[in-house]
């Protein structure tokens, strides 16, 4: 790393950041040199820049816009491309990255500004597939259905999806021409179809999972499961929903 090449100088962190002032403007790259400290992550670097917004060649610039919130990989805000990889900025530790570190916004979502992108598409998709348990009301109706520990252990990992969008970013089927909803969404369909109450409405969810942007657009590239920061078995979910969808359409065809 740079340390070996410049032994006398204080250690630095070199960053190349793709900047874009507004959705329709042309992106430009800016370079920053920050002073290294132990246990830095990308968020700390972006804060350093906000405190002293000057590029590597001494030019004044603006603080970098980016999304962040929990900083512990559970809110899903800070997904970006770091050295070409879709990942969360908070858990991207500087000492584990090759420098200069290249930082870009996710490419499959509209850029708002700099590294901040609009992932509303995912929330709309969750609406489309009815990713919820339709309860009668919040008044007291007693306990929920019993769930076997085995089922809980399968469902819980699915319910940890943080809607970060990394699985959409790496999916070749998600692009400007194709509204494929992405692995995260179908994994949620699987989750709700697995729940005893949710299963009563599985058909509705499956219907919404077919058609334009639906499950049949999955081409089995299997990039999603690798990119998921929560290790959700996304390919299993895709296969399962594909199976359920086929079964439903076949049955529909058989019974006319």
């Amino acid at each position: 790393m740079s340390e070996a090449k410049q032994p006398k100088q204080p250690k630095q962190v070199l960053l190349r950041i793709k900047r874009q002032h507004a959705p329709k403007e042309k992106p430009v790259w800016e370079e920053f040199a920050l002073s290294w400290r132990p246990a830095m992550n990308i968020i700390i670097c972006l804060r350093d820049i906000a405190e002293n917004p000057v590029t590597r060649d001494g030019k004044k610039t603006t603080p970098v816009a980016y999304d962040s919130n929990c900083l512990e990989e559970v809110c899903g805000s800070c997904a970006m491309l770091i050295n070409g990889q879709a990942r969360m900025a908070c858990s991207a530790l500087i000492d584990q990255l090759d420098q200069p570190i290249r930082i870009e916004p996710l490419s499959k979502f509209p850029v708002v500004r700099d590294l901040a992108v609009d992932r509303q598409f995912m929330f709309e998709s969750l609406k489309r597939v009815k990713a919820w348990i339709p309860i009668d009301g919040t008044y007291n109706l007693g306990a929920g259905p019993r769930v076997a520990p085995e089922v809980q252990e399968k469902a819980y990992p699915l319910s940890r999806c943080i809607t970060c969008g990394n699985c959409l970013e790496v999916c070749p089927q998600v692009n400007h021409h194709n509204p494929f909803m992405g692995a995260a969404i179908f994994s949620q369909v699987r989750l709700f179809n697995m729940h005893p109450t949710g299963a009563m409405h599985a058909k509705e969810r499956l219907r919404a999972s077919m058609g334009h942007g639906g499950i049949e657009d999955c081409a089995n590239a299997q990039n999603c499961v690798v990119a998921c920061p929560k290790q959700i078995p996304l390919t299993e979910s895709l296969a399962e929903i594909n199976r359920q969808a086929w079964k439903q359409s076949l049955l529909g065809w058989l019974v006319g």
Partner: protein
Amino acid sequence: MSAPKIIVVGGGLAGLMATIRVAEAGIPVELFSIVPVKRSHSVCAQGGINAAKNQKGEGDTTQKHFDDTIYGGDFLANQPLVKRMCEAAPGIIDLLDRMGVMFNRTPEGLLDYRRFGGTLYHRTAFAGATTGQQLLYALDEQVRRHEFEGHVTKREGWTFLSAVIDESRVCRGICAMDLRSMEVKTFPADAVIFCTGGIGAIFGRSTNSVVCTGSAQSALLQQGIDYANGEFIQVHPTAIPGEDKLRLMSESARGEGGRVWVPRNPSDTRRAKSIPEPERFYFLEEWYPKYGNLVPRDIATRAIHRIVYQEKLGIGGQAAVYLDVTHIPRETLDRKLEGILEIYQKFLGVDPRNEPMKVFPAMHYTMGGIWVNGEDQATTVPGIYAAGECEYQYHGANRLGANSLVSCIFGGGIAGPAAVAYAQGLRKSADAASCSAFASEEKRQKEKNQALLSQHGTENPITIWKEMGEIMTEHVTVTRINKNLETAYGLLTDLRVRYRKINLSDSTQWSNQTLNFARELENMLILALVITKGAFSRNESRGAHYKPEFPERDDANWLKTTRASWVDNDIQLRYEPVDISQIAPRPRRYDAAK
């Protein structure tokens, strides 16, 4: 009059619950949130949610839950509503269960419960170690369903700036800013429910999320709302230090059998695992034999500070102690604690299943918050309600672990219908209210933005924020000394002067995050003063508020709620008695059965 309109500000657990309740009443809701609501700070809650279901046959009751909560809070909470919350808790668990929360299960398919701090019962339902995330998602899904059905309009990416209060001192709506277009706009509403969460950012680094600035609470204070018990700040005993954030290591690690210790010899350089049992000091177990590692947070935090700063027994002379789960079977750890162990592993590169974790206390929660009445979450201004961490009334001087999620859902659940009833009873709707209040509020907020954007000072907002955080962490957290509190107050006042000279380094009118941060910073500085002044004035030790100069709880003089208000650009404190109608105060000690 026309159908009422309700606004909810904040989409964490409390805000979502309030939204659902209003939507269920058939009243349209507008839900404002800085981040998409699914990314709210409630996702960070880890360990679980309390309800006395007595599922383990230990004889637990809601009365015992109530007593533990009041006792754990050192008798500062008004009691009647806390009692109602504890009674409602089992029903809340049922509701969440029906919504599909993937709680851990027993072999019989029932909900599993674990132990938590400040109680001797298995009272905490949990979904792995990401319970807050699972609960938030369940409510988020229900709100999405109401949105789909047309009852809820979400305004995500908007930040609250101020309330619109008319000449008769009644709230008629809010003024908010679109964080993309930076548009400042007013929105009429017959009632507004604030669920704006924690204030961690005032301490610079904390376990809180970036949006937890307390900015909304401070803005409301400046508009005439009272802020109560601000000086009660919970410092969580176990977090991983980090430059950007202090990441929480849930109490559930201890609930599942985790042990806190240090080497008896601080210069012991051996690997933790190779230090034999007799050479380890399990100080919580030794000092508090009855509750051991599960003493309440204020007690555990002070014990760790004593070990590090007085006994000089921190690991290798550092400000750190071991939180050890290595003796717990791997399968149990993965099933019950994976979420938090994964955080430790990702951020430190060490597997806590093999090596004890190194942890230190961190600012975590505010017991204080917006003053609300003890009935229906109403504040001092008609039409404004508050629920969740942003208000003060459930946790007294110290919150018990796993009580926050239940208080958010209970409070939000009350605030929703209360706001509806209030709005339906109004003689004049917000739409009919005089336009001048809206116009003048919008103008005031636009002028604030203009002033910030056009000034060219020499101060950076991040620098001022970091300094504020250092002052607050050093002087206004675990140990409070009057001389230091006075110094802190002076330093904060200086920062407010320097604030007038800030330079945003960004004068653009699109997605200008620095402008928003600068606005929040001004509000944070004022709330920092409220906390510091409250701490300075309260000459006793109670719960999380510890003053070595006044080491005892002083019920004769201080069994009182602090009420801060903003008068002529200054903080005024006054005090009101605590409702102790249910449980008589008694000394609080955890070294023996209570």
